[in-house]
């Protein structure tokens, strides 16, 4: 990354929603791309956007934490209502009596989570709590990560408990 360009961008972006994309570098490690131009690590992003730790950019913070913790394995659920609606629609579209098929998971393979309990990313004390959809499975996980100042802890992903499909 170019330090010169970095300095140019820092001040102007602090009060705005960060323009971040997430990808992998040549070594396969997670990285962020600022405004489609600048490669950045998690720490560099926080330096560029210190407001992400203020609590009003929890979604962006969750997305960053999620990517640096699990790469593309999960997608942060930003809109629980939309997720719930899509989830129910997907369940309804799946054949109820179909068997499990390896490599082709369906939501019905796992059951119905308590969709109403899914919340947008938010802090619970020092813990950032967010829900994320498993990209491959489609099911929601509850993720928790402790954020202490500039230190972001190790994220923990736990699948939501499943109830019967109505």
């Amino acid at each position, binding site marked *: 990354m170019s330090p010169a360009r970095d300095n140019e961008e820092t001040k102007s972006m602090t009060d705005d929603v960060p323009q971040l994309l997430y990808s992998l570098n040549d070594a396969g490690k997670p990285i962020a*791309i600022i405004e489609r131009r600048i490669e950045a690590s998690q720490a560099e992003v926080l330096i560029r956007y210190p407001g992400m730790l203020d609590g009003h950019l929890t979604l962006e913070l969750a997305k960053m934490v999620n990517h640096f913790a699990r790469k593309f394995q999960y997608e942060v659920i930003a809109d629980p209502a939309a997720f719930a609606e899509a989830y129910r629609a997907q369940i309804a579209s799946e054949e109820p009596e179909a068997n499990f098929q390896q490599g082709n998971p369906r939501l019905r393979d*796992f*059951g119905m989570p308590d969709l109403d309990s899914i919340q947008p990313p938010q802090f619970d004390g020092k813990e950032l709590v967010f829900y994320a959809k498993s990209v491959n499975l489609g099911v929601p996980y509850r993720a928790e990560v402790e954020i202490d100042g500039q230190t972001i802890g190790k994220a923990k992903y736990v699948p939501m408990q499943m109830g*019967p499909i109505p």
Partner: protein
Amino acid sequence: MAKTDTAIDPASEIQQIIKDGRKRPMNFALLKTKEGVILKAHALKSSDVMFREAKQAGGQPAIAITGVLNVTGKLLSLTSLAEDVPRNLPKLAKKYFASLGAPIKVQVTLPGGGCLDDEAEDEMETETVAPGIEAPVEAEDDGARAAMAARLADVKRHVEEAVPVLGDNAAPLSDALDAVRKLVDDGKTDEAESALDEVEEALQTALDAAKTGVDDGLRTQLQTEFDALQSGLDRVRSAAGEAVVRKADQISSMFQTELEGNLKKASGVLSVLAKFISTETARLPSAGDDVKSTPEEDAAGQSLPNGASGGDAVSSSLSPDVAPVIPDSSQACFDEMSSTFGDFWDQVCVAAPRDDAALEAELGAITNQRAEIERLFAEGPIDVPRAIAIGQAIMRLGNLVTTAKKINEIQASNPEAATHMREAMTGFDAELGPGTVVTPELLAQIEAERQAALTAQQQAEVHLAAAEAMPAGRAREAAITAAQEEIETTGAALEACKRKQTAAKGKEGLTVAITSGPLAADAGHPFDDLTAAQFVDAFRREPELATSAIETASTSQHPEAIASGMGMLCDRMEDGFATSDGRTPPAGFDKGAYARNLIAGAGAEGGDYMADAGDYIASGAHLTPDPIPSPPGANTDRLARDRSNYMALSVVDAAGQIDVDTPNAKTALGHLRFSPDVIDTPTPDMNQHVIGMCETLGDPNNQQEAQGILDGIGPPEPGAQTLLSRAIGKPPGDVTEDDARQQVMASMMTPVHQGPVGSCFATAGVRRMNELDPMESMERYAELAETGQFQPRNGMDAIPAVMSFPADQDPLIRSMEYSAATVMAEMDENSRNQLMNHAWGEAVDNLAGPVGDLPEWLSRGGADNWKVDKMLIRQTVVSSFRIEYDATRSTTPSADGSSSAGVYMLMQFQPVNKAIDSEADFVAALTERVLTALGERPGSDKANDISAAIASRSYLDALFKGGHAPWDMGGGGQPAEADAVLFGQEAANTEITDNRTGWDTLFGQTEGARGEELLAGLLTQIGEGGPDLVPVMNNGIHAFNALPNDPSMQALRDGGDIPGKIRRQLVEPGQQIAATTLTDEKAIEIMREFFISLRHWDSAGSRAGLINTAEQQGPGGAVAPPALKTRIISVCSAYLDALALQQANLWVSNEAAAGTVHTNAERDTKAATLRSSFSKALEGMASAAAVREIATPSVTIADSNWGDAAGKTLFVMAPDPMSGQLIMWSQSLPSGSMTPLGEKWVDAGWSEVRVK
């Protein structure tokens, strides 16, 4: 033939012996007694019998020799069985024969090769002379003259009798006789003898010439009569069933053969043919109707008299109004027997060893039957009734000899069983009559007799009741007495009928068993001697059960376990399965069905199953109605679920303690193994598992560990409640921790098998854990039952437990299997993910030219734009594509070995949902995604450069990895990932054999050679001393567990020289099998088995006619297995043509429905391809049929994962009898049936999954 009746004068007897001896060898006994020399000889009776007859005629002998007699020209040869023959015996015998008017030279051949003759003795006057045999020379001369005079008179009489036939041609013969008379009168007996021989020869020549003229007239007449039958014959051929037509052709052919030889027989055959045509034409529909006869009518057409060879249990019956074709004389009959049975005929014409009562009885019956035939022939002229009687007697003799021959073939390998067979057959014949051929008609007749006897007995009971109802008094007492006597009489009659029926069924069943069934000498899966003997004994008591038992045992791995219980089962059949205190099951109990189910259980479980069953029955536990209930029609999964739950409840007491030794637990295990209601729908593989698990939990250490796991299960989480609710039968919210514990124990009682969808790599791991470390399995079950989540052991995040499987399947086992498979699909190490990671890496890096070489076009602020652009492209493509498994798409070979379809697909989700299944699709999709990632407008120069780069051959070739590209990802398993997910172990595939697909064509490597290489690789790479199950895979086909410690594998490994042992123990025996001509019975049986499979394959029956036609063509002669396979495919040619065309037409229709129209030429090309494939399938069926019928060595190499509670499938290596090559088979247990897996299974590269 020689008469042995002592009333016959000695001269005639000697002359008859000499005459018969010219025709064939005879057994003889020559004795010197006080009465003189006694010679007895017979073609059929043994020399021992001859000795007894001679002794009876002449008293105690001073000299006696026995052996075989032959007459050649003027020499009577006696081959002695003993070496110590007095040297003057030939001379004494010669003198004696001459004294009786039968001058002939005598020579005795000794066992050691020495030879004594009458002349040599003349030169050795000093040799010891046998005491009491001193015939004077004068008497010899007188005797010779008298004998010659007698012979002259005899020949003269023959010449005079021939005059009406020979006319003037007889005159020279009379003149010649006058000259002989003169020589005799002159004492020139030797010259007279030679002259008389010439006269006799001339007489025979003249008679033959005259007879030819007579025969020609008769032949012409018979041919005319035959021609007259042609219209009827044509009618039969055109309208009757094929079996009837075949029979008509057989009779016609027989007539033509006899017409050139025995005109008398030809006449008889013509009568039969006329009668047959008359009968069959009467059955035919009216003219013009081409309806064929029914199979039953066809079968009827196969039952015509069949004489000397009639030893088959399903042979003919004799019609009272059709005379059978019988030989001219008893001797001719025996000649035919000799011709039919060859050397064995001579064997049954000797006396049995005195210490073998069974053999003595067998041979005695044959001797007696021969005598009976002689008696019948001697009774007088042969009319139709007597011809029938003789025909029946011949059939009985044929039956006796055939049976004896079959048993004799078994003698060498199973001597004890052979003795039991002889005793059984003698016993059957004691009830039925010697040599009775059991036919359906006979069985029906006996059944009718039994019914009549039963009715009579019931009537007697009625009479008794009526008598007892009479007023008291003498009349009543008399009536009661009479009725009781009637009951006794009718009861005895009924018992006699039952004995007869048992004997008939026993003989029928045992005959089939020793002829072409599991007890035959060449049975495909021979029993040991004791086992066979025990089965034979059962035929004498419960023949139908015995038949069922040997059929089950013939493919079972534990035939001895079945046989050992046959005595007990026969006892229980007799007492109605009574308990030790006499209690029996309620009315309606099906004894036979229960016994057969116990037999199946013993065959599956082995060991002491039958003894334990006997104890179970004696205890009365079998009287407990339906102890483990399941719904009517429950499938195997449901049965397993109900039974595992039952066992789970039985091995945990009220306090929650695991104890497999309580009476309750033991009774439960008894019910599982032996209850009539349970084993009516058996679950043998589950039973085996439960027995093993009870042994495991019976170990105190295991019990303690299991108890800890069980006690540690807390209240189930909602996901666990959901997972368990269906199996427990409660709403999810009501599922408790006790329910979770019960389910964990139930899962411990359930064997692991691969589910109905492909997940072989996961199943193999779960199955291995279950077998090798059941306590670890219990831990995982407990974890699932409490959390409702599956926790991978490789550090990946848990996933919600998969629960989408049928309700009857075990929730914990199946969820563990499917959940593990789901995690494996997510792993970075997954081969598909590796493939895509490689592809994306190459896809991005190789765009450096069109993208990175022109940084000024990007102009976003610096030289590192290409680096960022790569990340943008990566972000876009990774977010836009995903790998999914499409179970509906075909892959070759199949992805998991048991599924017929299923491949991994690259799916695009942004900006459209689309399956990427072609290179063109991939190029288009990637181009669009790259341009989007870079924000490049399509059509720009840069966009065109990018498009051209992506479409270039070099760019696309770089995306391949492991033979696969993103648009062609194939199927296959990931056993190494399974180790990581299930065991937390880092494992890697270690090659056992490399991929050889297609080597046949390139290098001529055969399937058999590859099979040898593979087996050697398995034996050397997976050494002994390791675990019983070792994960292996044949790449792209299946993942499963090798069984390196199977006894058959160890036998090949022990002592080294594995390749040599493979050749000696498997390859060379296979080659020998393939090179050996099959018996007719065996070839027919293999074809029968093949067509059973083919009909099963053609389950809709749409080509039944073609199959029937193919089967009726038969093996086509004595052939070795490879030729039989060729024959089978050949006779199925029309079937294959029809099937291929029908399937090709179906393909055309489907294609047309999908919008693609094909020409007839394309259809025919498709049909040719399909035909080749179907033909290959039929070859496999033929091999499967052959391996069932031919004893073949095999070695068990692996457990397949496949199966359910009722059975499992193993992989074995065994020679293909049809080719002799060592190939790979699947073997189903408990049935034992084997199916060739195909060359691809051994050609694929094989790997062992080894922990790093």
